[in-house]
């Protein structure tokens, strides 16, 4: 009965939220639903025939989930996943309520993919018993909310302890993540074996061995602290990979690599998304799918057709110009986006949007850890906007970027106009927004009729 009421209330709230255009209606309904029926997540999640896949980690959750959903759907499963990027507990509750019948006795899917914020993991594993848990990577992110990155790892660890039946799929190239293996019996690793190396010399989040404190040595570092590492003192090292990518080919238009699964089946993966980080996402999605027994040819075929997730190099047409949205949330992600834009050495027009609301991280210090120095290699002009636009322009000044090529406009609508005026027909404006800045920009694009909805 409680679930029925909760579902009714959640549905009303969602409709109201959409009608008043106050938002996408992805969190309030769940907040209310959980208040009314605290066990709503537990109760409804047991109705899924093939169980639940949890995806957590700092970067890549949304894209990995989207890729996995495409693969699973191609294999004939009915998939539900929280694609709107609201990955706190109340978002999950909203989402389950939306996908169930009113009584909560049936759910519209065979398998669910949940992307979960790192800090929310213990709360979620208390409520559901997932089939598989994936940890993509751990970078410094929104430290003002979660404290520190070592603590984030410990929080995920405590969540893993609470779900001993789940298979754990870890990014072996990330020492912080691979170290989580001690929390679980059934562990699989994915990673990359390639010659590619990062240009970035910036801040590294985890340089010391988590077992003994000795500095890790890298045979090869792909980006941030991801790579082939080992500890010369205690023997902690990048684990043997069950799923791997090699022969990487990266460009601004897309990426290719060879995928080998745990049974030595191999295939050539091709994705429309650029950036090494997106190959990691494709690898994670392929590894999960393999682990679920899906044929490698289905994986190969369906990944090819996956387009960018919400704001992850999503391209929008404006008259005869293009807007490419590349969400930036943390230093490593920011540096990765910059490294990606630099692949072809062609000059580019940038629009940088820095907000400091809760979902962006209220501390803007992180932009000083991102390697904005690399921007001057390819950016012909930059327009900055957002609540903390002044901080961004200051960062660019100290990155050695010429001030005469930067414009600042706090009004985002006007700023978009300025940025678009800078580019010619057929050209692309690369927009690098923080999370709430992206939502704000989408509202502007929506009001101009350029995007269909505020959420995906």
């Amino acid at each position, binding site marked *: 009965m409680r679930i029925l009421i909760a579902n009714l209330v959640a549905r009303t709230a969602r409709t109201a939220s959409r009608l008043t255009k106050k938002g996408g209606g992805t969190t309030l309904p769940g907040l209310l639903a959980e208040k009314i029926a605290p066990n709503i997540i537990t109760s409804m999640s047991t109705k899924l025939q093939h169980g639940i896949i949890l995806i957590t980690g700092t970067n890549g959750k949304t894209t990995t989930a989207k890729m996995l959903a495409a693969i699973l759907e191609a294999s004939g499963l009915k998939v539900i996943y929280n694609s709107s990027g609201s990955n706190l507990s109340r978002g999950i509750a909203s989402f389950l309520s939306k996908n169930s019948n009113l009584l909560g006795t049936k759910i519209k899917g065979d398998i669910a993919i949940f992307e979960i914020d790192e800090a929310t993991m213990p709360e979620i594993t208390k409520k559901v018993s997932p089939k598989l848990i994936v940890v993509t990577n751990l970078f*410094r992110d929104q*430290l*003002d*909310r*979660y*404290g*520190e*990155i*070592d*603590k984030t790892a410990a929080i995920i660890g405590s969540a893993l302890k609470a779900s001993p039946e789940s298979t754990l799929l870890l990014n072996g190239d990330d020492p912080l993540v691979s170290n989580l293996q001690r929390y679980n019996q059934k562990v699989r690793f994915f990673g990359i074996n390639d010659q590619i190396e990062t240009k970035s010399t*910036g*801040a*590294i989040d985890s*340089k*010391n061995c988590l077992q003994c*404190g000795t*500095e890790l040595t890298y045979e090869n570092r792909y980006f941030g602290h991801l790579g082939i590492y080992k500890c010369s003192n205690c023997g902690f090292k990048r684990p043997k990979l069950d799923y791997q990518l090699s022969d990487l080919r990266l460009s601004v238009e897309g990426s290719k690599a060879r995928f080998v699964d745990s049974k030595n089946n191999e295939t050539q993966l091709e994705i429309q998304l650029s950036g090494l980080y997106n190959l990691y996402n494709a690898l994670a999605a392929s590894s999960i799918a393999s682990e679920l027994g899906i044929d490698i040819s289905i994986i190969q075929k369906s990944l090819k057709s996956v387009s960018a997730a919400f704001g992850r190099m999503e391209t929008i047409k404006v008259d005869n110009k293009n807007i490419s949205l590349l969400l930036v949330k943390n230093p490593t992600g920011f540096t990765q986006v910059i490294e990606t834009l630099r692949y072809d050495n062609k000059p580019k027009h940038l629009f940088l949007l820095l907000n*400091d609301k*809760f979902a962006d991280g*209220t*501390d*803007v*210090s*992180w*932009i*000083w*850890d991102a390697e904005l120095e690399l921007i001057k290699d390819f950016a012909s002009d930059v327009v900055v906007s957002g*609540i*903390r*636009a*002044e*901080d961004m*322009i*200051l*960062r660019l*000044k*100290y*990155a*050695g970027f010429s*001030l005469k090529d930067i414009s600042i406009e706090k009004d985002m609508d006007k700023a978009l106009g300025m940025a678009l005026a800078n580019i010619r027909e057929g050209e692309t404006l690369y927009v690098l927004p923080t999370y709430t800045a992206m939502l704000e920009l989408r509202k502007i694009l929506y009001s101009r009729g350029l995007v269909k909805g505020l959420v995906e």
Partner: protein
Amino acid sequence: MKNKLTLVHLYPDNMNLYGDLGNIVTLMMRCQWRNLDLEIQKVKIGDQFDLKNADIIFLGGGQDLGQKTIAKDLLRRKGEIKEEVEQGLVALTVCGGFQLFGKYFQTSKNEQIPGISVFDCYTVADQKRLIGNVVVDIEKSANEWHTEINFPRYKESVKTLVGFENHSGKTILGKSCKPLGYVKIGYGNQGDGGYEGGVYKNAFGTYLHGSLLPKNPWFADYLITLAYYRRYKKDFSLLKLDDSIEIAAHRAAISRAQTAKTLSI
């Protein structure tokens, strides 16, 4: 020949949270724009280095693990660092670095990490994390500092420092350590909105990230001036730079601190 200053960056690999690099970049660029070389020497655990050649020493913030990792190595250098600070070495320490330049840091697990007692202060971890934008008044506190040159007070904006704090440690100052400033907005050393940071001779400690120096260029210039004076024994009037971008960011940070809700976990 170009004049040169040397900055020793202690443990950049272990202590580099929250944009500490912004402080180094700011010192470097502001020297460079004045045709002054700033050499950066990174010091790792176990490295040999001679502080006699150093003009500025910097230690950033770190997580508990990072602090524990470097504490022993830092302790080994205690005598040398203390002696140089007595002789006027310029030091900037942020957050975890500030804590370890004090007497000790007591973690939330009641472990005591010994510091090097440059500052007469100690830090005790508390359950509540103090997180948010900070505005600090340094007009009055600057009169109490025993730095070699008085902090110049020639601009309206010089009276404040802006930044972002994020610490669970509460730092209590002893007699010989003067506050860096008085909190106008934010929590400060003890979470009570009282004072912020610590100063002893030419050594400074603070909880301000943000990064600190880019948005407070007068403070960056002050550190450069102190270091230059000590090295070359003459007054060094820094070439005036166009700081309009810095001042705009400083003002924006103040108005944001006034309006943003501070969050706690």
